[in-house]
């Protein structure tokens, strides 16, 4: 049975800061006992699979690396309606997915969660590598504490 709240960390942990969503999710997982009503998923580069992961939940929190034209390391909390995509890549594909388009499709199919919150983290380095940059690593505690505030109804 699906839990009503989903926390999904997106990204590729082998591409340094691009995997920040997965790194944060792994930290959140250490305290997952505190949130029995929430499901924590390392969604990797799941792309359009996100459509299925979010379907018919009450609340979804998405954590992802994002180019937002802010400084590296910046954490921004927003709802889908506040942002528009300027991504010019594949409209829908599995790895190069555009999560804002997926949310739009979820709405058209009538299965969009009531509440979706996206946490975007501006990267410093997107390049092959297992570790995130020091700039982001130093803010990890801050990211975890900010995002944790939203793991509730």
């Amino acid at each position, binding site marked *: 049975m699906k839990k009503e709240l989903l926390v999904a960390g*997106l*990204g*590729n*942990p*082998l*591409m340094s800061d*691009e995997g920040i969503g997965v790194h944060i999710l792994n930290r959140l997982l250490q305290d997952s006992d505190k949130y029995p009503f929430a499901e924590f*998923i*390392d969604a*990797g*580069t*799941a*792309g*359009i*699979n996100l*459509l*299925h*992961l979010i*379907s018919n939940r009450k609340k979804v929190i998405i954590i*992802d*690396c*994002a*180019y*937002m*034209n802010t400084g590296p390391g910046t954490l921004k909390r*927003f709802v889908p309606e*506040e*942002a*528009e*995509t*300027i*991504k*010019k*890549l*594949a*409209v*829908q*594909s*599995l*790895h*190069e*997915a*555009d*999560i*804002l*388009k997926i949310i*739009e*499709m979820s709405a*058209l*199919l009538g299965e969009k969660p009531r509440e979706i919150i996206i946490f*975007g983290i501006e*990267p410093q380095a*997107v390049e*092959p590598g297992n570790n995130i940059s020091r700039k982001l690593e130093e803010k990890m505690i801050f990211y975890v504490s900010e995002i944790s505030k939203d793991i509730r109804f």
Partner: protein
Amino acid sequence: MGKNLNINVHHLTRVEGHGNIVVNAKDGRIEKIRWEVPEAPRFFEAMVRGHSYEDIQTIVSRICGICSISHSLSAIKAVENALGIEVSEQTDMLRHLMHYSEQMQSHSLHIGYLAAPDFFGAPSVVPLVSKAIDVVKTIVRIHRIANEWSDLIAGRTTHPVTIIPGGFTKVPTPEQLLQLQQTLKNTVKDIHTLADVVLSVASALPKFERETEYVSLKQTNPPTYTFYHGDIASTDTDKAMPVKNWQKVANEYMTEQSTAKWAKWHRESYMVGAIARFNINADLLCDEAKQTAKMFSLKKGCCNPYMNTIAQLVECVHLFHASIKLIDRILTKGLVSEKVKVKVRAGRGAGCTEAPRGILFHEYEFDKNGKCLAADMCIPTNQNHANIQKDMEKLVPQIIDEGEDAVRQKLEMLVRAYDPCISCSTHMLDIRFKK
């Protein structure tokens, strides 16, 4: 006066990764036709060096968000080959079932989300929702079931966590397998509905043919429409090649129009993927899948690359029926919890599976402690690049009088038919905030 063409599709949409199509013609004379792949290399082969044989499949599963199971399985087969590890019949059957789920995920994604908009004249699947909601709902249902199927056997939808060299860390319960089987039985009608829908719009597929070589796995003992076991077969020869000699098949080489390596075997290019598997193994499909092929007049020897999408559809029908039977076999044998024992030794080994988009090779070398010394991988899309280029060179002169928009559309559809997976590792958001 002849036609002028100036096509420059920079970053083709609805394919996985970054590919460009460039065509120039002046007064009907073609000056340039190029399929370019400017994607940055990702150095996975270097990344696994120094890691333990136990970690390889976990790392390489991140190469791709679609074919992660195929990458993991090819890697595990190579590791087992290098270290002399045998697996049980139960492991073999569960791996097949897991692998089938990925083929279903990927094929339904390609047919439904990436190719269908071309058939229906929509720019993407999002506007298609309002144009043909029942069709999209059927596609979403099939794709969702395939994902849940992977979740059950692989531990999650992508990047499997249950498989290790020698076996599984966790196997499903008989009740879970029975439930999956029931779900598949209930969904068979959806697959056939999808086939009917695609048939109703199949006239949108261009009639273009070019003879080429097709390469896929072929399993003779027992004869099986295979995605997992077997030797490397070609439509250009009756002599199959053992997997350990895969480098003599791919003959990878560099070209200046691409950062990806290209491949050739008996002629200047070859094609891998569903149509290659069909051309080599079609007589081993289940009756229902053969019937679906017949609906589309798809026959062995087909050399229309656009029919690759139809071959994927035929495989979907086969995979559903084959999986229902496979679950029966697994349950009849009975599921047991197996302990995996590995005796580490130095060695080199190759492993191969059919990824949804074609044959996939992995090879690794380990020292006596099981530490990876070297790695080599050859992905299906790279094996298709030369064939895409040759198709374009034949197709453009045939359609040059149809005008720039039609030529562009047919070339884009051609590349999409190969279901290419050029790069899978980055996906990030690129957004601005509304004022």
